[in-house]
């Protein structure tokens, strides 16, 4: 595995996405209509807790829907072709990086639409941006690995949710905690602990995927 390989693989992901524009546009529409649905159900801001929880649940579902495609969309023959050209570490790294990028774009888009419809009660903007950065990359990294596992079962769409939700819970718990502090503008020494734990979980999951993916790679 080397940097050039990862770069080439990420470029391939972009090309593939570009070839399937309507799939990506579909995800964008999914995000916007989900946000609109929440706006339609609530009509106004009820409390910052609800605002916060709803936002991350929307992001979680968007992530599960988007990233579950990342290994399933390409058929098995094509996967065999990659396995002859690239190392497994290169493949999982490129998927994690590319999915992080996609999740970042989607999260910011969702945030924009969410704020437009439901208002903006966020007090500590910079902390919230840190949360979004850590949250979207973390979800992308965890879901990439789960997607690789789920794709082995042959396109069973529910398995992705079944496998990922309990695993994501610890991450989501810390994420929602930090995000609520950012929205309410609570300036506590706990925030830095939250950031360390979220960053640490990102690193642990990335390292685990890097180590375990080669075993999952071919059968």
């Amino acid at each position, binding site marked *: 595995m080397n940097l050039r390989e990862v770069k080439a693989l990420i470029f391939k992901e972009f090309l593939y996405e570009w070839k399937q524009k309507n799939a990506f546009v579909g995800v964008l529409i999914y995000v916007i209509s989900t946000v609109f649905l929440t706006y339609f159900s609530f009509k106004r801001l009820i409390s910052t807790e609800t605002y916060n929880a709803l936002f991350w649940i929307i992001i979680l579902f968007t992530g599960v829907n988007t990233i579950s495609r990342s290994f399933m969309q390409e058929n098995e023959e094509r996967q065999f072709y990659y396995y002859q050209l690239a190392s497994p570490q290169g493949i999982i790294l490129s998927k994690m990086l590319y999915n992080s990028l996609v999740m970042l774009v989607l999260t910011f888009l969702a945030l924009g639409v969410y704020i437009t419809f439901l208002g903006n009660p966020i007090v500590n903007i910079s902390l919230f941006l840190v949360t979004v950065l850590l949250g979207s990359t973390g979800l992308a990294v965890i879901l990439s690995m789960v997607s690789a596992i789920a794709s082995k*079962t042959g396109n069973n769409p529910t398995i992705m949710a079944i496998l990922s939700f*309990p695993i994501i819970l610890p991450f989501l718990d810390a994420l929602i905690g930090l995000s609520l502090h950012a929205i309410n503008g609570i300036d506590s020494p706990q925030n830095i602990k939250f950031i360390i734990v979220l960053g640490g979980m990102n690193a642990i999951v990335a390292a685990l995927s890097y180590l375990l993916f080669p075993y999952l790679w071919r059968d």
Partner: protein
Amino acid sequence: MKGMWWKLLGIVLVLYAIIGGFLMPVPAMPILNETIRNTFFHIPMWFAMMILMTISLVSSIQYLSSGNLQKDAAASEAINVSLLMGFLGLFTGMLWANFTWGTPWTNDVKLNGTAVAILIYVAYIILRGSLQDEHRRAKVSAVYNIFAYVMMMLFINVIPRLSGTDSLHPGNGGNPAFGSYDMDNTMRMVFYPAIIGWTLIGTWILSLKMRINKIENKLLYD
């Protein structure tokens, strides 16, 4: 008789824990009263569950490094037995909580941790069920098992410290309990044997299940 001694030890210790747990004198504590005896039945379940989950993790790692399908069977059977222990621990806990907290379920870090652990391993069983080919099933579920174990450990050990909310459980957050100060020596005399006994019984069930598995999949292993 060879290799039987630990099974006998398991039976003796569990019998001792049941008889001693109900008959021995226990310290009288406010709120807890006689429910303190639940320590002898509830906590050993968690120990047995965690030890079996760790056995499963080790088996999964062994499978990935050796490709031996029997290791994969051990990982899956250990999860089945640990889930049994987990459910027993959950029910004894809910029964106890109903008397002391007045409700079988509250938003407590330890309860949430248990719920997540059970969800993760039920997902593991579903994952195994949806894969047909033995080698593929073994590989995929071993990877998920390792991944899941790490995330569960993070949830149980890191998140409670992070949120700063103490568990309602005795011994946490200044609740009267069986911590180092409150558990007297008679209680310890039952408590530790109970943990060892239930762990041995769990391992015994696992070894029986492994033997049945070996007979059922004789063609696969030969």
